[in-house]
């Protein structure tokens, strides 16, 4: 089984993100980056499927130069090949364009399964997987929590997670695309020594974003950022308690008692 896993590098935002003077872009230069959490599960599931049923997993990512870090991670985890679609730095590229460019590159090879995480930590859109499936002309299932390959039927049987504990069970004819939910398995641990070794020796195939875009019609961007606004408590109802842990505990206890909830 040939599996392609789409990986995205996301910034880890712990402090207040800085909106640049244009009011529309973020300065993420000071922030660490890592493999999007959902994609780590997609990668692990792909590697487990390839191991169980035979075949290989490849990884692909679209982003600026530093995005290749997630591809080295994928290779160190066990992927056989990596493709980096190199984009210009700092350019906002919408998900419609990303899905189109990924589809054009993926179509050049052969595959049985394409896998992505359910969504990205940065925009939370959950958009690329199903859009990509449409552009590739293949079936898809999102929020997948279990995958079973049915070799005789050239199909996969999957369970989709729905709300409140409900689960949908589906059979998809291959090739197909799955977006993987966290918790399906536990992503493997990659030591920093192993990662360094792969960074030194592994090969990543580079392709240019502009070249791929120019190969066909469009795609035209479908959104324009008008403004970014850091989180502000909206005339918030919150009363923030202050002081030592004991003082805050006293204040909280008083308030909860007077409301009758303790």
């Amino acid at each position, binding site marked *: 089984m040939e599996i392609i896993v789409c990986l995205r590098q996301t910034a880890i935002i712990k402090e*207040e993100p800085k909106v640049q003077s244009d009011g529309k872009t973020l300065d993420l230069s000071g922030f660490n980056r890592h493999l999007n959490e959902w994609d780590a599960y997609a990668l692990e599931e792909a590697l487990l499927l390839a191991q169980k049923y035979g075949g290989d997993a490849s990884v692909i990512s679209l982003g600026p130069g530093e995005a290749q870090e997630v591809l080295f991670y994928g290779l160190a985890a066990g992927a056989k090949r990596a493709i980096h679609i190199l984009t210009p730095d700092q350019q906002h590229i919408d998900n419609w364009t990303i899905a189109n460019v990924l589809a054009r590159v993926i179509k050049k090879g052969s595959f049985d399964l394409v896998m992505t995480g359910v969504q990205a930590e940065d925009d939370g859109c*959950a*958009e690329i997987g*199903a859009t990509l499936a449409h552009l590739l002309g293949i079936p898809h299932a999102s929020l997948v929590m279990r995958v079973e390959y049915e070799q005789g039927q050239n199909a996969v*049987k999957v369970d989709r997670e729905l709300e409140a504990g409900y689960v949908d069970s589906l059979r998809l004819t291959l090739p197909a695309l799955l977006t993987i939910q966290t918790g399906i398995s*536990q992503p493997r641990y990659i030591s920093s020594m192993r990662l360094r070794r792969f960074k030194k020796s592994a090969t990543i195939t580079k392709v240019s974003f502009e070249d791929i875009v120019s190969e066909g019609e469009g795609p035209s961007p*479908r959104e324009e950022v008008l403004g970014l606004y850091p*989180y502000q408590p909206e005339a918030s109802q919150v009363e923030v308690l202050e002081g030592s842990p004991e003082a805050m505990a006293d204040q909280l206890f008083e308030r909860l008692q007077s409301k009758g*909830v303790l």
Partner: protein
Amino acid sequence: MENKILVIAEHRAQEIREVTWELVSGVGKLAEDLSMELEGVILGHNCEELVEDLAESVIKLYHVEDEDLAFYTWESYLHALMPLIEEVNPLMVVMGHTTMGMDLGPRLAAAMNSPYMPDCINFTFDGDDLIVTRELFGGKLKSELKVAKGERYCVTLRPGIFDPEKVKRGGKDIEKTTPQLDKESFVTQFLGLLEPPEEGVDITKSDIVIGVGRGIGDRDKLKVVEELAEVTGGVLAATRPVIDSGWLPKERQVGQSGKTVKPELYIACGISGASQHTIGMKKSGTIVAINNDPRAPIFNIAHYGIVGDLVEILPAITSRIRSVR
């Protein structure tokens, strides 16, 4: 172009899902403000009661009936919806950013060749321009976007942003249709809908819920949260990352894919407040948030906030309560 918004209804286990009532109520009001008409579509099989129920809340309801629409799949819905959307010709198609909306929305928008705006918390029109608001990084930023002009738009709205009122809007104008589905060509086969398993602890029944999130850091620290749950007589619940780590069983998960709780008191410990979680607890009577990040979006919905380290704060609260019991 018709000046109409078409809401795609969701139902499961013979019930219209709450998100649908939120949309017909909230989007309906926005539509009125924008001088647009709200119409709805419900796809299903033997669901006449649901059709009757929903029909009053929209100006017109399209009822698409077929045995292959008894349960949602992207493929049967897409094939049934595309000709209907062509005929109805709405300016915008709206659904909830639910497990159905997330699955169907991008695919439907791509098939319609329409801009897709997912997980919006607001939308409006500025002249002919569609403007939407979304959140980034789990609610740490808001993003306002202008959508490229399209023949029509496809939007998913976050559940929980509108109240699920059953507004009377229409005169039960129902148009029933049977779609032409080329079932032989389908590559997605629905095998079954599995119901939630029987559970040990029902967190929805407790008046006090102590929620624990990723901020707890490691499993050993769960002890301080367990002690607080014990002294308050509450139950321990958790966000998805804690459940994924295997620290607590799935039956304890609060949020979109877990349970919805509405206790009198919810104490959120180390929970940042991403929408997937807050969807399941924001209607709690009193919400206390304890987090070391003062910018955590959980403080936006909390009544009382404490910024600090859980390992110092929680034992102090536990000890204070224990002193009077």
